[in-house]
C-alpha cells in the first residue's frame, strides 16, 4: 500500500489511531513530550478533538491532554 501522507495531529479524527513522525517544536517542548512518551513511531489514538478545546490522545498506557496549538505541531501518519 502507498505511504499515507504526513499531517498534523490536529487533522486526525476522533477514534483514529496514528503513528507519530516528528514534533515541529522547540527543544524544551520536544523533550517534555518525549518524556511523556511522545516519540517517533509511538501510536496515538485520538479520544477528543472538540474544536476549539484541548485535544486528548492515548499514548502508551496513559491519556494525555494537549493544547490545540501543540496538536498542530505534532506530525503523524
Amino acid at each position, binding site marked *: 500500500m502507498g505511504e499515507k501522507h504526513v499531517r498534523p495531529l490536529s487533522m486526525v479524527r476522533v477514534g483514529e489511531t496514528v503513528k507519530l513522525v516528528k514534533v515541529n517544536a522547540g527543544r524544551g517542548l520536544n523533550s517534555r513530550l518525549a518524556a511523556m512518551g511522545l516519540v517517533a513511531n509511538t501510536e496515538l489514538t485520538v479520544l477528543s478533538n472538540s474544536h476549539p478545546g484541548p485535544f486528548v490522545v492515548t*499514548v502508551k*498506557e496513559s491519556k494525555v491532554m494537549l493544547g490545540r496549538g501543540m496538536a498542530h505541531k505534532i506530525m503523524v501518519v
Partner: protein
Amino acid sequence: MKKITVALAGNPNSGKTSIFNMLTGARQHVGNYPGVTVEKKEGLCKHGDYEITFVDLPGTYSLSAYSIEELVARNFVIDQRPDVVVDVIDSSNIERNLYLATQLIEMNVPLVLAFNMSDIAEQRGLSFDIDQLSRLLKAPIVHTVGNKAKGKDELLEAVREIVERHRERHPHIVHYGDEIEEEIAKVGLLIAEKEPKLAVKYGKRWLALKLIETDSDIAERVESRDVLDAAEASTEHLRSIFSDEPEIVIADRRYGFISGACQETIKSTVESRHSASDMIDAVVTNRILGLPIFLLLMYLVFFLTFKIGQYPMGWLEWFFEWAGAAIAGLWPVGSESAIKSLLVDGVIGGVGGVIVFLPNILLLFAAIALLEDSGYMARAAFIMDRIMHKIGLHGKSFIPMLIGFGCSIPAIMGTRILENKRNRFTTIMVIPLMSCGARLTIYMLIIPAFFADKVLLRTGIFTIRTQALMLWMIYLIGIVLAVVCAKVLRLTLFKGETTPFVMELPPYRMPTGKSICIHMWHRGWMYLRKAGTIILGIAIILWVAMSYPKPPAESLRGLNAEQRQQAALKYSVVGRVGSAMEPAIKPLGFDWKIGTALVGAMAAKEVFVSQLGIVYAVGDVEKGAHSLRRQLQDNYSALTGFCIMLFCLISAPCVATIVMTKQETNSWAWAAFQFLALTAMAYVITLAVFQIGSLITG
C-alpha cells in the same frame, strides 16, 4: 542506629505520595528546596537498626533541565547523593514510567524500583517476569500498593540490602547505537582528562551524555572550554547524521530499550485498559455536561469550605470570646489595666484571629485532596483551560480564585495546585481582588446606607433591585480587575510563553481517608506554624498601634463610654496616621475618620466597620449599625460611599493575606509588591471615579 537518606522519585500520578505516606505516616516535614518554591517533603521511618530519612522528590517524567521540578529532583540526586533512590513506578503504565528509571540508572545511583499499584495492573491482566526484568534493568524490583499499605516491609528490606551490599553499578544500560556511543566515548575521555573531579563525582559517561543532549545546567558546571567545544562538535555531528536533535534521538533509543525489555517480561491477557475511567470521562469531560458538572463540583467545594466551615468557626469564635471574658474576669469590674487589655484584646484576639481561618483551610484542602487524588483535578483543568488560557492562566487557577471569594488565606495556600511558577505567582497576586467574606461586611454596611432599595426592573422571573445590583457590580469590578491584572502580569513581570499545555489525565482512583487526613494535617500545621506566628505578631503590633498612646485622663472627663473610645482611637497611633493621611485621601472623598478606619482595616477588612463605629462613637456596631448608617448618610455622599467600597475592594490586602503571600512566594519582596501595587491601583481608580463622579453629580 545508622542514619541513611532515601530519595523517592517517580512520575506524577505514579502513587509516589501514597508510598511516601505509607513509609512515613504522619511523621513528615514540609519545607521548600533552597531558593525555589518547589515543595520539599521529608519523613522519618525506622527499619531494623536504620533510621531512614525519606525525601519525596517532585514528581517528574524526566530529569532534564527544562523545568524547575526536574532540575530540583536531579540536583538532589547528583549533589546530595542519597544512599538509595526509590523510583515509584505505576505498574499499569510501565513503559512511560521506566523512562525516568533509565535516567536514574544512567546517573549511577543505588536504585530500587517500586512497582506500585500492582493490584490495578493485575486487574488489567498484566503479569510481570520480575526476575528477568530486574536483571535487564540491573535494579531490584518490589511490588507495592501504596494506598493499601502493601509491600512496605519488602521495600524497606530492599533498601537495606542495597545499602549493605556493595552492588556493582551499571550506568551503561542503554546502548544508543554506534554513532552516538562513539561520541559519548570521545567526549567522555576528554572529560576524564580535563575535568577529573567532575568525572569522579558524576561519572564521565553521564556527563558526556548530558553535554551531547545540550543540557544547559550541566554545561555550566564544566569549566574546560575543550570539553564544551568537543561536546558541541559531537552534537552538531549527530544532528547532521540524524537530521534531528540528538536529545530526541537519545530519548527514542531509551524507549527502544524499554520496550525491548518489556516485550520479554510483561504479558498482557486483557485488552481493554481504561474502561471505567473512559466511561466517567465520557460524562465529565463531555462538551455539554462537562462545564455544568464542573460548576456544581466547584459549588460543593465552596460550600464545604465556607458554609460547613462556619460552624467550627463559630465554635472557635465563641471559645475565644469566652476565654477573653474569663481572663477579663480576673480583674475587678470597671478597672482599666494595660495588661488585661493586652491579654484580652491583643493576645487572645490575635490568636483567635489566626485560628479562626483554620477550619476553612482544613476543609479546602480536604476538598482539594479529594479532587486531586480522585483524578478529577486534571479534568477540571481541561474544562476550564479554554477560558483561563485567554487571560494567560492555567485551567486550575480557577479553583484558588473561586476560593478567594470566601477568603484569600486558604485561596493563596490553594495555589499550590499550580506547578508552574509564573501561573502560580500571577494567581497569588490577583487573588485579593476577589471580594472576600470580610469585605462583604463592609459592602453590607455601605450599600443600605446610601442606596435605597428600589426595584429597577421587574420581569416575570426575576426583579433587579438597586442594592443587589450594587453588590453585584462591586464583585464584578473585582473580577474584571483580576482578569486585567492577570493579563498584564503575564505580559510583563511573569512574561514567558504560556507553558505549552500538556497534561496527563490520570485514571480515576478512589481517594483514601488516610491520604486526605495527612494532606489536611500538613496544610493546617504549616499555616499555624509558618503564617500563624507572623500574623499573630503583626496583629499584636496593630493592636498596640490602635491602643497607644493613651489620651491624658483629664481630656476624657465627662465623656460617655462611646465618646471615650472615640477619643482614645483618635489619640492613638492609628488615629494619628489616619489624620495625617487626610490630605492624601481627600481627593478620594475620604476624611480622617475613614482614613483611621482604613488603617485599622489592615488587621482584617471587617475591622473597618467596627473602627468606623468607634470614630463615630456609636458603640457596638452590631446593635448600632442603623445609627452608624445614619451618621454616614449625614456626612458623606453616595459617591463617597461607593468610593469606600471600591477602595476597600482593591487596596492593601489584610495583614494575614500579606503574610500568606510572603509565605507562598518565599519572599517579602513579592508580598510588598502585592501590597503596594494593589494600594496604588486602588488610589488611582478611586481618585478617577471620585473626581469624574464629582464633576457629573456637581
